[in-house]
């Protein structure tokens, strides 16, 4: 169901793996520190060289050696910053550095550097609130460096980000500000990419990454200060980290913790962390005038388009940001705005307008376009040009686009929901929260006073929107989180102190699923299989499938399949060319189902013909080159883990008639809890145990006559769909997952009697065999 989640949001994963891989390959789990006692290892002498060098004052700016740790002042730090030598590297500071430094000192946070240092020095935990534009993400970690001096103690400062893009770009910026090479003193660590070195003292990383590190280093010993940035976003990993760090700070009195939030509702964080002190820095924002519609809108997309065009035709210069919910809606809106704007421009009723879409799955190069300046007037002295960005809620907090003066907010976003009762995890269009609406409005006031047009009434804003968006931990399947926590040594999950504990049923279901997957025993203890599964940055079902796949002689194929299921959709189906796209998909179709079809695609993609010009080949076959490339990358990462864990990689010969059957059986070993049976001869299927009535997603290649299917996702729209399905035999279910397919425990009904018949048939065959 949530196979993609791990790779999409939890960036930890393979990047971390790579790092550990290197470490383990050298017999050293910790490249940076002497913490693990590797300092004596003669083979690793070169690893520690940098640190040694830096400790020699003559080789570096000696100014920092005069600093007394946790007793410095802003003045002293400023003097060090002024150079002329780089206080961290000892090299001469560049002109560029000086220019940036001047700008940095204008940032709001600089006004309160002393105040911050005082609180930081006096407390173990500190809550820091800085509105967008205050400079907190780039400056606070640097303030910390000058006072914490991690490099002199063989430690690091970590600053987490909910998104990999942010971790990367912020690290880049800070490296520039500190006049160092990215990846040297300042680095980042995200999924598939670890840009750090032994000299790294400040590490930007995704929150999921830090969580993964904690699995192997329960005390996070390599860090002297941990900064959780954008905590107000309340991602699953940040929430778990907060629960974990709340315990770690008790064990490690030398560890300092800073929680950074962009919203003023930080009292919740304070309360959670035993009334930690709070420091608030005002952001650099301008007032935003808010407009509501007089009556509710019957079609929010229509209303949004109308509003955008009206702004373009009547309002003063300034760019527009429109929030919509998803890729399809956004692309459609862009097309329509473009068409209508053309008319306006032709009638000379408005200046030029450029429209850019923005959503998560958009290729980075196209995402970058949103930063292009607005177009110039079509003729000298003509009406000014304008750009309009149509975005999902990623522009709400994560991306800052300067120049936005007008925000159009229809009040919806796609949000993940999970319900343990029917085990469905889906993205649904839902009304945003008041906090979200305020955040969106704030986007209009970055450059100058702006306007926000809310496409709902003031009454609806007050009465219908919830105060805060539900944190992710309340909207997610927690199976992999539970596995992680178990690995982290958290035994009593019932009383694990989360800021917003989820419904008990969510934990109940996660434990049950892990038990059926044999990752937890009946007592809730981690099994060997569970420990192994936790090594994989995957959903437990996928991890188990991968681990047991050698038993079905198809681990190579399952490895590919797991990678394919962990990346965005590989099939492309453009609105203008659906028929052709479907014909192309038909080329790869396997009658037994979508999983096997995806595998065929991957094999073709890796084939010689395709690899000659893979980009063109993908384009010709309506496949996403990016997704396939990503799958290739994920596969490589997973393969490393398999090799390390000594899981054999093998294939059934392709000409063996059991080639596909083995793959299907391996599929069952992980997804036996996601099986549906056809109702009679109709099109409807019923999910096993949960007994939900579902339809096969229209995108399936599966022929309609499959009685039993495994599915990858249960998608909730106005209809219930199961997506990515492959046909299986009921005998396999009973054979591979006897615990789950314990017939007496089934509710009376068609599924039970069907299973009963199969069981009888198997028993009869067995008896016959014995007779012979």
């Amino acid at each position, binding site marked *: 169901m949530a196979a993609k989640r791990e790779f999409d949001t939890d960036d930890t994963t393979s990047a971390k793996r790579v790092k550990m891989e290197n470490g383990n390959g050298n017999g050293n789990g910790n490249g940076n520190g002497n913490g693990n006692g590797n300092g004596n290892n003669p083979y690793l002498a070169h690893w520690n060289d940098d640190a040694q060098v830096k400790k020699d004052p003559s080789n570096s700016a000696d100014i920092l050696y005069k600093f007394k740790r946790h007793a410095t002042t802003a003045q002293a730090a400023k003097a060090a910053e002024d150079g002329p030598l780089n206080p961290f590297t000892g090299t001469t500071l560049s002109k560029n550095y000086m220019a940036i430094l001047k700008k940095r000192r204008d940032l709001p946070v600089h006004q309160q550097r002393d105040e911050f240092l005082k609180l930081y020095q006096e407390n173990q935990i500190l809550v820091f609130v800085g509105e967008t534009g205050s400079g907190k993400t780039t400056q606070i970690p640097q303030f910390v460096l000058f006072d914490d001096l991690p490099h002199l103690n063989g430690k690091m400062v970590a600053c987490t980000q909910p998104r990999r893009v942010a971790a990367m770009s912020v690290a880049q910026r800070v490296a520039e500000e500190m006049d160092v090479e990215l990846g040297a003193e300042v680095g980042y660590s995200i999924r598939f990419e670890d840009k750090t070195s032994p000299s790294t003292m400040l590490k930007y990383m995704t929150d999921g990454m830090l969580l993964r590190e904690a699995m192997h280093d329960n005390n996070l010993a390599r860090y002297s200060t941990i900064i959780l940035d954008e905590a107000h976003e309340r991602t699953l990993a940040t929430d778990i980290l907060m629960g974990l760090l709340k315990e770690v700070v008790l064990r490690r009195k030398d560890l300092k913790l800073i929680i950074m939030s962009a919203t003023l509702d930080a009292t919740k964080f304070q309360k959670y962390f035993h009334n930690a002190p709070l420091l608030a820095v005002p952001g650099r924002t301008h007032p935003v005038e808010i407009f509501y519609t007089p009556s509710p*809108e019957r079609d929010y997309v229509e209303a949004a388009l109308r509003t955008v065009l009206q702004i373009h035709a009547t309002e003063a210069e300034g760019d527009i940001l429109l929030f919509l919910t998803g890729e399809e809606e956004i692309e459609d809106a862009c097309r329509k705005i473009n068409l209508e704007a053309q008319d306006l421009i032709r009638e000379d009723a408005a200046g030029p307008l450029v429209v850019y879409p923005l959503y998560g799955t958009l290729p980075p190069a196209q995402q970058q376009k949103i930063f292009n300046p607005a177009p110039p007037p079509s003729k000298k002295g003509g009406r000014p040009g304008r750009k309009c960005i149509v975005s999902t809620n990623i522009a709400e907090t994560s991306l800052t686009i300067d120049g936005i003066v007008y925000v159009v907010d229809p009040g919806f976003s796609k949000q993940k929901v999970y319900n343990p009762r029917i085990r469905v995890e889906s993205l649904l269009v839902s009304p945003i929260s008041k906090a979200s609406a305020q955040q969106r409005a704030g986007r209009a006031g970055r450059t100058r006073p702006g306007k926000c047009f809310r496409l709902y009434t003031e009454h609806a804003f007050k009465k219908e929107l919830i105060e805060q968006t539900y944190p992710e931990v309340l909207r997610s399947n927690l199976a992999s989180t539970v596995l992680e926590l178990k690995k982290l040594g958290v035994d009593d999950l019932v009383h694990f102190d989360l800021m917003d504990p989820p419904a008990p049923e969510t934990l109940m279901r996660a434990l049950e699923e892990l038990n059926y997957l044999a990752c937890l025993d009946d007592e809730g203890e981690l099994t060997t299989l569970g420990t192994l599964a936790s090594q994989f940055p995957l959903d437990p079902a996928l991890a188990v499938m991968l681990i047991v796949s050698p038993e079905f002689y198809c681990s190579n194929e399952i490895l590919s399949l797991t990678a394919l299921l962990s990346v965005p959709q590989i099939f492309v189906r453009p609105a203008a060319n659906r028929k052709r796209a479907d014909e192309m998909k038909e080329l790869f179709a396997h009658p037994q189902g979508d999983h096997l079809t995806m595998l065929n695609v991957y094999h073709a993609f890796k084939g010689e013909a395709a690899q000659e010009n893979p980009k063109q080949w993908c384009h010709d076959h309506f496949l996403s080159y990016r997704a396939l490339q990503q799958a290739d990358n994920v596969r490589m990462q997973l393969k490393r883990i398999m090799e390390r864990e000594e899981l054999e990689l093998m294939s059934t010969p392709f000409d063996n008639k059991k080639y596909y059957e083995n793959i299907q059986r391996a599929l069952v070993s992980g997804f036996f809890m996601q099986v549906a049976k056809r109702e009679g001869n109709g099109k409807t299927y019923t999910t096993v145990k949960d007994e939900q009535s579902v339809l096969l997603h229209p995108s399936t290649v599966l022929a309609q006559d499959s009685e039993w299917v495994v599915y990858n996702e249960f998608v909730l729209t106005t209809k219930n769909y199961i997506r990515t399905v492959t046909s299986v035999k009921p005998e396999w279910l009973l054979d591979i997952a006897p615990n789950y397919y314990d017939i007496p425990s089934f509710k009376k009904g068609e599924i039970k009697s069907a299973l009963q018949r199969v069981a009888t048939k198997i028993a009869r065959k067995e008896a016959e065999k014995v007779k012979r």
Partner: protein
Amino acid sequence: MADSDSEDDYMKMTFDDAPKDPQHETSLQRAARKRKEGEARSRQKSKAECEAEAELVREASLATALPETNKGFKMMAKFGFKQGDTLGKSETAQKEPIQIEIKEGRAGIGVESEKKRKYQEMWDQARREAKRAKEEEGNFFEERRQQQKERKAERDLDNAQRTAERLAEKEAEAENNGGAKEQHLTDINVLWRSRARHQIEHEHDRRLKNELTNSLASRLPTLAQEDNENDNDSKTALGHDVTPFYSTLENELEDEDPELAEFEALPVSERLQKILTFLRETYKYCLYCGHVYEGATMEGCPGVTEEDHD
């Protein structure tokens, strides 16, 4: 009670031989039933039906909490978890999973509630109007019925009074053998005294009118002339009587009659009731039968009121 099974429990609340559902089904009936059932089964459900059904099942499942038999529950119980507890240490911890709401179409925020509100308003309005219409309708018919009933009662009252008067006069005549006796208004039974009073009033009015005409005539010379030519008879005929015979009664008109006033203050139906009872008790007469009965029990008459005679 080991042998309770063998003993016949005569206290039990069920009947062994209670008729069960019809057990006997002829082969034709069975065939028909089987065919019907088969048809119902094999009928392809429409898309809408399937969707509605799927949604119903989903909603039902979403409303059902996981049972304690869940394996996860047992693992949690190990750490002291009980049904109804929440996780963690927060006081505001989630008790139930977050509701799933599926948005259909592109209606903006507030449209649904606005629609609901409008529906509610329309519904309330319609209900109020229906209620009022019903009330008005009910009132109208009720009033009409009441009016008719009252008018009928008045007619009956009049009839009964007349009958009573007639019967009373007849009785008096029989007693007095026709000898006219001067009668006071108060001597007349209060039940029909009003009749006599009305008569007198009517007489009085007529007389006053006559007197007025006469007096006018007397003042006119031509007529006065003629007057003299009139004999007493014609005078009487013309109503120019000098000494009216009803003087006593007329005088009484001015008097207070609290008894009558009290009686007249009663509602029509009650007055009618009284007079009917009087007629029965005194004359064994039933107005609705229109018959004087022989026996005191008035055998054959169904009752006092008209309804009894329906």
